[in-house]
């Protein structure tokens, strides 16, 4: 009912290109996160879907209908802004009811919807207050309730949690996810926080420089990053990258040992593996320990492999000391390969 189809949407400001021909389809009721660093174009894309900005080229369809030429109010969307945009001159009740009043809804229905969404967001006691009397977190809930009360086909959220402190952010993440999961809306959620993206999304679309680099489920993005950028952006601590030299016939030299890899003719490839996908043992890389960080549930060991920084997550009771030379073995099915020029993933080959 509310599938969103973005076709070849591009946005140029004079000589700068904010978006390069974006193609993206968001299924009905899907929770899609647009993830990326500042300036990657994610907010611009969201605002184009909302109708607050116009695309230079391309089309946007919502629920099968073309919406490019429609005002925001006619697109069936509701939006939650980064700074909440709660109207200071209205009570919380009137704020939530604002969109309903614009539709001339009968008072009974207005009351019903406002009270229901207020309960949903746990702000029933605040209904008579003004935004100046609310904390940031409370204002954020009002903004969300206001959008939900519209019972829209599509909800757009522009970094709604970024102005909250860490603890509150964590609580709201869970709350938002459950509230939105139970509603029938399609959601586009913009953030630069990869933890938020991973925890909330059905699918993540990672953006860089005005392009979508990869759009897939969180697990897929984590396990099979389509580009170097995705691998390094997602995951904390980040993915490790080493340069591997071609040793002929699908064998590659890296970290002092030779392993199986893609059957490519290239001179070098980028070898990548996540810190948690390695264990102590022989027959792997030679690593010199630099720093040990006992984090509690596990120990993070920063070491040098091939003279590059390399991070390994080991058991919490691991006994190593700085300057030790240890052997670390990568889990073969978690090894990933990237082309050093295009930075795209190269399909590997399972070790025999």
């Amino acid at each position, binding site marked *: 009912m509310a599938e969103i189809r973005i076709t070849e949407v591009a946005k140029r400001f004079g000589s700068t290109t904010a978006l390069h021909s974006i193609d993206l389809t968001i299924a009905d009721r899907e929770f899609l996160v647009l993830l990326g660093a500042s300036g990657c174009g994610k907010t611009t894309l969201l605002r184009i879907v909302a109708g607050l900005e116009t695309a230079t*080229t391309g089309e946007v369809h919502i629920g099968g209908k073309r919406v490019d030429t429609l005002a925001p109010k006619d697109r069936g969307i509701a939006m939650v802004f980064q700074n909440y945009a709660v109207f200071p001159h209205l009570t919380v009740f009137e704020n939530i009811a604002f969109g309903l009043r614009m539709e001339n809804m009968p008072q009974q229905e207005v009351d019903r919807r406002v009270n229901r969404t207020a309960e949903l967001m746990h702000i029933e006691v605040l209904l008579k207050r003004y935004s100046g009397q609310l904390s940031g977190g409370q204002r954020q809930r009002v903004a969300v309730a206001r959008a939900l009360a519209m*019972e829209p*086909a599509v909800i757009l959220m522009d970094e709604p949690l970024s102005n909250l402190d860490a603890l509150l952010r964590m609580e709201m993440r869970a709350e938002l996810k459950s509230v939105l999961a139970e509603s029938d809306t399609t959601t586009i959620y913009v953030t630069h926080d990869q933890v938020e993206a991973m925890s909330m999304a059905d699918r993540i679309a990672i953006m860089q420089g005005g392009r979508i680099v990869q759009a897939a489920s969180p697990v897929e993005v984590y396990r099979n990053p389509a580009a170097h950028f995705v691998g390094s952006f997602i995951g904390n601590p980040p993915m490790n990258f080493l340069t591997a030299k071609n040793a002929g016939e699908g064998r590659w030299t890296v970290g002092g040992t030779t392993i199986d890899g893609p059957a490519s003719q290239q001179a070098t490839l980028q070898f990548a593996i996540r810190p948690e996908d390695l264990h102590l043992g022989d027959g792997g890389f030679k690593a010199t320990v630099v720093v040990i960080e006992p984090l509690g549930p596990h120990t993070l060991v920063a070491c040098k492999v091939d003279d590059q920084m390399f991070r390994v997550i080991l058991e919490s009771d691991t006994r190593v000391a700085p300057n030790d030379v240890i052997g670390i073995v990568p889990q073969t099915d978690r090894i990933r390969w990237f082309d050093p020029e295009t930075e795209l993933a190269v399909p590997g080959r399972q070790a025999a």
Partner: protein
Amino acid sequence: MRVRFAGNCRPVHETKPFFSAPRDRDARPEKPVMNPRALPYILLAPATFFLCAFFLYPFVLVAWQAIATDEGELTTKYLSEMFTHWKFNTALTNTFWLVLAVVPIQVALSLLMATLVTKMQKGRDMVLYIWTIPLGISDLAAGLIWLTIFEQTGFLNSLLTNVGAIEEPIAFLGYESKGTIFLAVVLAEIWRATAIMLVILVAGMGLIPKEYDEAAQVFGASRWQRFIKVTLPLLKPSLQTALILRVILAFEVFAVVVALAGTNLPVLMSEVYNRQFDMQDTHVAAAFALLILVISVACTLVIMRALRTPKGASL
């Protein structure tokens, strides 16, 4: 709590589009829905028209009237009539002396008041309101107010008589006492127009973070040094604005003089008024007006040059 939204979701509206969808996708011009290109111009149009019609155009007319006859011939006869009139020199010198006497005192006074009020904590609002009261007072009313003081039967004479300083009331504003007339006008102008500079300077001072003053304190600067070397330079933009405004207004001095001195102290503006209204001599009036205009613009440029701050050197 499980909640299902009752009924259908709000459907996408099938309303008439703001602009019809273009056929060729790639050739579509930028026609924003929420920001139609013409809107700012439509909103600006009345004000632009108004200012052009009632500001730019009249000033061009004034200049024209001063240098051209009714038939449209260029001439200098009105200008020479103005320059050669017996009252011209008096009016010119009076105006200049007034400006020279009043403005520097006002600068000093408003700086003092701005400094005082910025440092106040309690009672600040009340004092600020009192000191800005003159902003709302017409220059004519200000003239009348000081008339009550300097008038022969006025309060100054009453005070002096009551303390026994004089026997008979002094005619401060009499025809012969040009000096005291001038003084009275200076006092009235200072009283009336300092608030204009005060407001601008207070706003400018409010923008200076107090860290600069505190840093100067730490480095051993005395109060006076801090004022001269830190506050004043940072206040330059506001000073520039305040000074330009005040000087232009000073050359327009009119009603205060008329109220206090009648015809005993001619100034440029009163000459304009006389010729226009009493003598119906619009061309020479325009000549005087042109002169005031030129002086104002010249002063503005001088002040802008003298008080300019190099790029990056301001707050």
